[in-house]
């Protein structure tokens, strides 16, 4: 039996055990995502990657591909829901892009551009989340955390350090630093950790590097977030 399924009408081949996200990415089809990263076990929490499989919604980063399944992704209905999720992420934190060092390199922002998010729509929470500037090399600005857990997975699974964790439940979920003081300076975290490289937004930032690349010349200023995946289509 051939290992293919259809994604928005296009035939996609996959290998046994691959998720929809992995197969689609390999085939050069972009599915919006925030908590998925090809090097880590999926977390399935942001739901940006939601698709419809045989008419039912599921997260494409956790769902294994099955031969013959019919997957819908780039539809007005699903994109509307993705945009709503994105808007909720914006109002739950404090996202002032003009003063954020990640602007232009930020996956949340670039995903919002991709989805045509013109406004945050909802009322803002304006939460009070103090920054942690204790570490000599790295600043933590929790105002922008979207709880994707990539830093948690990177620190635990690659660095073997467990510097970060998600704590609390529901709306009270927040990122904590694993030290008695709760301060990054009191951990063995370094700038060379994998966890220092994976944050999709502007939480984990290298100090003394602010705006070295000017706004307007950053990665997603040059090309939309879908472009890197779609570029693979050429050679396919």
């Amino acid at each position: 039996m051939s290992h293919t399924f259809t994604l928005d009408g296009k035939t996609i081949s996959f290998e046994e055990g691959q998720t929809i996200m992995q197969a689609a990415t390999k085939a050069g089809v972009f599915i919006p995502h925030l908590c998925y990263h090809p090097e880590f076990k999926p977390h399935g929490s942001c739901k940006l990657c939601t698709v419809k499989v045989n008419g039912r919604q599921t997260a494409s980063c956790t769902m294994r591909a099955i031969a013959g399944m019919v997957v819908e992704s780039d539809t007005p209905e699903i994109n509307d829901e993705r945009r709503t999720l994105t808007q909720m992420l914006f109002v739950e934190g404090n996202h002032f892009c003009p003063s954020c060092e990640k602007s232009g390199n930020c996956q949340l922002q670039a995903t919002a551009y991709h989805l045509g998010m013109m406004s945050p729509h909802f009322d803002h929470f304006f939460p009070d989340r103090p920054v942690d500037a204790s570490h000599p090399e790295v600043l933590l600005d929790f105002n922008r955390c979207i709880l994707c857990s990539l830093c948690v997975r990177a620190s635990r699974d690659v660095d073997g350090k467990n510097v970060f964790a998600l704590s609390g439940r529901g709306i009270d979920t927040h990122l904590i630093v694993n030290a008695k003081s709760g301060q990054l300076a009191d951990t063995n975290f370094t700038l060379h950790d994998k966890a220092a490289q994976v944050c999709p937004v502007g939480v984990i930032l290298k100090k003394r590097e602010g705006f070295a690349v000017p706004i307007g010349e950053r990665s997603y200023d040059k090309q939309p977030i879908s472009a890197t995946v779609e570029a693979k289509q050429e050679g396919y």
Partner: protein
Amino acid sequence: MTAPKKKLKVATTSLAGCFGCHMSLLDIDERLFTLLEHIEFDRSPLTDIKEVSPDCDIGIIEGGLCNAENVHVLRDFRKNCKILIALGACAINGGLPAQRNHLPLTTILEEVYHTSPGVSNGMIPNDPELPLPLDQVHPIHEVVKIDYFIPGCPPSAEAIWKVLTDLLAGREPELGHGLMHYD
């Protein structure tokens, strides 16, 4: 002979903004002349008309809401304009002024007028003419319905031009890659 087409009335204002978005509007440069063939400015810092006419077609709002007067002006715009556009980051999410939102207002006033370096015998202004500050700065869509948004800090002249010309042509405004910016 056909009668000259009636020009659309456009009102603009800056609430808790820095006029940067208005500067960006002026950055459409000589296209302002093309624009003026289709629109006339009503209340705006560009005309110095103080009140919005009741039959305005488009209202363009820069800045969020940081005091009671901002709220009155915004409601006045909503009442009198058929279409309301939020222009720029501060109108859309409060922007820089909203970064005071996690601080109590009294602490801010104390620091600005009493304890900051260089202030001596400071007094918190209390003239009844002064609009009362709100406890937090809010985006304008949290208070009135907004029809269109032009993000950016400020939005580029190109983005403003695109939305205005789309609207004038009766198209749904759309900013593609390159014009869509939150920074």
